[in-house]
């Protein structure tokens, strides 16, 4: 049973508080009466107490039921008709629940007509066929969004809302949309052309951790009526990737190398040429092209764009594919360039202080090794600066891409807190143990600051002979650039002292491991942090390891810094439709579109609010480069939102595949115009697993007659209440009884 106006039914239920209040209010009326015959009265009370309580309770229940029933009766109760017995030409009120696919794949155009427009027309036709008193509910799959929900009898308003609806750039999430409707209706019509992008969330590997969003395990009593998939094969070319080549720093000197990956889909993939125009937000341009061979589906295009403004640290880029294809949404892609000449690294170490021409060595040799490894020459693009451990503060960390901590034992709690906060904003921190044994419990403070979940031994372990580093066939992604010669470089490395470290599963990854299975280099991340933490089990001291003197030292430290920083830069990408930042941007309170499809946007009005956890007030609905702004309107970071190429896929699907994806579903098949059949309350021939039956998306209700039953029950309850209140012991004694006792 459902209600035409559920609010009234809810009000009816809430209104039961009135009789309950009155019940207790009247109990509390007290006007004391002095009485002589108390013994007799007590006898009478004892005799009537139980009966009186029961009658008062019955009266209260009756009154509550009256209020609830009145609310329900006014709310227009509608009894759901048996779906198998739904009268197809009934004059009874009907309910039409439509799920309309407005996902990005519905932007597919064939013969000049957009898929969404076709679906929209079908839905409008269905609505137009409804009669006054019927109800309609409309849900959109992108988001998903409740367009007209809960179902309403205001058909014209629902129609107007649907007409004004535009197709979205967001991926379809049909499963989640169905979940909204299945709570209230057993029959749902889904209108879509079912391109592969529409069911990407269901048919591909689940992207979400929420199983509700990737399953169509709808309740068994819910039946889905699907429009047939459009099996027309159309050609589409997508930009699936657009990134500066993995290199950090990305100097603008001599131009910035870019890499674009393209993919083609469709039935007729002949020889062709794709023209790509790249433009930056400060109007630097690059035009490159790709030539397709017959049957080729993927291509990589490289180019170098010249950035004229060297003052800016970050530049927004848009790549546009100038090619007429069936899907325009995936012809644009955006990227951010961190255009700077150098990576700035801070080395936290004790510095040498000269006093009266006498120097005392507080600078460890490890610090010198690291500095030399990072800057063997001046033109490597890495700048280093020494930071006194006690001088570590937010100001010093500002502008740094990476901090290498060589004296963790000399950093106080405040210093660790500064580093922890900076990691959340994207700083890469490399921690190296102190070369000498100290009384400081630096391990605990360090691990607690980053909440890593590791354990590091308090004392170093020695080994004679030294332990070599384990060779790995598949180098870690941070060392990918060294993969060709990594084995050779690792071979001479040995470790004679180290701190034992234990890393729980999912709390970090081992980059380099010693022969005794003890991690030598470990990487971890804190939840919600943009940056990362790397830990060496031994300091770069010759007493501990021969690493500083071996050829691996320079490329190892440089690659760790470069690739870690580059990964931080890449962690700013998200999919259109996302409602959460990929990483927390410190101080950001809003997102503002800076570079969109149409070019540079100067719209300060449409700002998406961001909470401190990185959650957006509304999902990002347009692709482009967004600037994160702080309270003063200053840009504190950049985020790029791109169309999900998988969700934009135009590949056709078959009815069998669709029915396999959607459980308990039926695809409407007919020889006539599909639109008319969906809308019609007359019989529609459908095909369900090779069986034919008659059904309609519109459901019939025995609505008004059921309201009559409610009012009849209400009348009976009122009569019962009157009798109980007047003639039972709860109410006044009847005149006849009174006479008998006088």
């Amino acid at each position, binding site marked *: 049973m459902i209600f035409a106006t559920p609010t009234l039914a809810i009000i009816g239920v809430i209104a039961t508080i009135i009789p309950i209040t009155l019940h207790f209010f009247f109990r509390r009326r007290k*006007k004391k009466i002095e009485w*002589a015959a108390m013994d007799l009265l007590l006898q009478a*009370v004892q005799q009537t107490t139980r009966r009186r309580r029961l009658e008062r309770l019955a009266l209260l229940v009756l009154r509550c039921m009256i209020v609830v029933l009145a609310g329900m009766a006014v709310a227009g109760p509608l009894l759901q008709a048996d779906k198998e017995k739904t009268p197809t030409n009934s004059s009874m009120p009907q309910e039409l629940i439509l799920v309309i696919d407005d996902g990005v794949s519905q932007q597919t155009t064939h013969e000049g007509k957009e898929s969404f427009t076709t679906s929209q027309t079908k839905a409008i036709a269905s609505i137009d066929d409804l009669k006054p008193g019927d109800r309609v509910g409309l849900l959109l799959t992108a988001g998903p969004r409740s367009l007209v929900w809960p179902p309403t009898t205001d058909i014209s308003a629902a129609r107007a809302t649907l007409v004004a609806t535009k197709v979205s750039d967001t991926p379809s999430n049909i499963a989640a949309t169905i979940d909204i409707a299945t709570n209230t209706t057993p029959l749902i019509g889904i209108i879509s052309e079912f391109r592969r992008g529409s069911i990407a969330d269901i048919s591909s590997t689940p992207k979400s951790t929420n199983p509700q969003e990737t399953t169509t395990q709808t309740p068994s009593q819910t039946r889905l009526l699907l429009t047939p998939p459009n099996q027309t094969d159309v050609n589409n070319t997508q930009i699936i990737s657009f990134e500066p080549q993995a290199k950090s720093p990305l100097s603008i000197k001599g131009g910035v190398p870019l890499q674009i990956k393209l993919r083609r889909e469709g039935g007729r993939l002949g020889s062709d040429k794709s023209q790509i125009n790249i433009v930056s937000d400060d109007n630097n341009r690059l035009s490159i092209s790709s030539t397709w061979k017959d049957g080729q589906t993927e291509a990589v295009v490289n180019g170098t764009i010249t950035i004229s403004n060297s003052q800016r640290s970050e530049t927004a880029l848009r790549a546009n594919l100038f090619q007429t294809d069936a899907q325009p949404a995936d012809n644009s892609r955006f990227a951010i360039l961190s255009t700077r000449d150098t990576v700035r690294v801070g080395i936290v170490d004790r510095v040498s202080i000269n006093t009266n021409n006498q120097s005392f060595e507080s600078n460890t040799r490890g610090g010198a090794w690291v500095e030399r490894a990072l800057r063997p020459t001046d033109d490597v693009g890495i700048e280093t600066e020494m930071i006194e451990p006690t001088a570590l503060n937010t100001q010093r960390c500002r502008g740094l891409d990476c901090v290498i901590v060589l004296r963790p034992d000399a950093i106080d709690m405040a210093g660790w807190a500064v580093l922890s906060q900076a990691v959340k904003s994207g700083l890469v921190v490399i921690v190296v143990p102190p070369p000498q044994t100290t009384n400081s419990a630096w391990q605990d403070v360090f691990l607690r600051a980053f909440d890593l979940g590791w354990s590091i031994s308090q004392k170093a372990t020695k080994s004679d002979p030294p332990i070599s580093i384990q060779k790995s066939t598949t180098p870690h992604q941070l060392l990918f650039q060294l993969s060709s010669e990594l084995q050779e470089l690792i071979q001479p490395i040995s470790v004679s002292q180290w701190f034992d470290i234990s890393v729980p599963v999912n709390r970090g990854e081992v980059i380099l491991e010693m022969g005794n299975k003890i991690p030598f280099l470990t990487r971890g991340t804190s939840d919600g942090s943009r940056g990362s933490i790397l830990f060496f089990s031994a300091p770069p001291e010759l007493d501990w390891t021969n690493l500083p003197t071996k050829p691996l030292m320079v490329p190892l430290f440089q690659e760790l810094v470069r690739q870690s920083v580059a990964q931080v830069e890449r962690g700013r990408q998200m999919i259109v439709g996302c409602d959460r930042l990929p990483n927390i941007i410190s101080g950001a309170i809003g997102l503002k579109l800076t570079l969109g499809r149409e070019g540079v946007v100067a719209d300060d009005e449409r700002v998406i609010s961001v909470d401190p956890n990185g959650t957006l007030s509304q999902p990002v609905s347009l692709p482009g480069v967004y600037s994160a702004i702080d309270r003063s309107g200053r840009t504190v970071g950049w985020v790029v939102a791109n169309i999900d190429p998988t969700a934009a896929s135009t590949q056709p699907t078959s009815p069998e595949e669709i029915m396999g994806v959607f459980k308990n579903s039926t695809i409407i098949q007919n020889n006539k115009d599909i639109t008319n059949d969906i809308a019609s309350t007359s019989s529609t021939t459908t095909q369900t697993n090779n069986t034919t039956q008659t059904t309609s998306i519109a459901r019939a209700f025995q609505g008004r007659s059921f309201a009559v039953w409610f009012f009849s029950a209400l009348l009976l309850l009122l009569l019962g209440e009157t009798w109980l209140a007047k003639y039972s*012991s709860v109410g006044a004694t009847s005149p006849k009884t009174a006479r008998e006792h006088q």
Partner: protein
Amino acid sequence: MAEGSTTLLRAEQYLAPETLLQLASFELRAKMIAEGAMNGIHVSPRQGAAVEFASHRQYTSGDSVRHLDWKVFARNDKLYIKQYQQETNLNITILVDGSASMKFGTLETKSGWGGTKVQAGSNRWTKYDHATAVAAAISFLALSQKDRVSLGIFSDGIRGGVRRSSTSDHWRAVIRCLATELVATKVNWTKVSEQAISQNQGNTLFVIISDFLSPLNQIRAALARLRHRGNDVVLFTILDNSEIKFNFDVYAPFEGLEGEPIIEVDSRVVRVAYLNALQKHLQELNRISRSFGFDCTVFNTHESVGPILSALLAKRQAFARRRLSK
């Protein structure tokens, strides 16, 4: 007879509580009740003591010559002694309930009207007022017939009263006592009955005026004690109109006058059960009193005193005549 009925009706009007209330003088009120009640019963209110011939018996030596019937001796020359049925004067003890429950009353009075001290505070005609009115009337009647009357006000014992006497001034002492005594506490029937027996030697007519709302077993024990000593008892049950009809229509706390706990009562709910309990109580009281040969009469404080009182007196007079004829 018709005339008598008319007189009776008029008397009833006079004896209505509303009328009695307007009589500031307690004395006047009692006289009105008494004369109204006696209307049609006593031919002469001043009948007094009498000696009535019963039979003859032969003279034997030692008999007093004072009672020789000289007329028989003159006719028959035989000595016969005249024997007489002597009517002794009645000893009446009126016991008025002075417990706290007698303070109850719902008939409203006007300020300045006559009454007892109990009534003065509440401006209501209480059961105690009604009881004193009846007691005063009975004492007036009894003293008019030269019966000896004593009075006792009782609650947890006989707290005050007037000693037995048949003098003409005695009635004023009775009135004074009734008007000044206060009511309080519960009735201790055992103690009351023992004190009444000790204070009244010989056959006595006890007129007990109370609401008799105490436990019936206590009342039964007290009556049994009085019966055992050969006393006669008349029970006048004084109840307020609301106690008899329970005509409330409220949900309210009821507070006992004798220290009972307050109970929340929906009067509409308990009305029938209460009336049943009251009816049962009165029936049982009546049965107990009849089992001892006593009379029991219920007075409604909102109704006239006279008709019930006169009916009772007539009934007792008839009963006395029947016993005499035997």
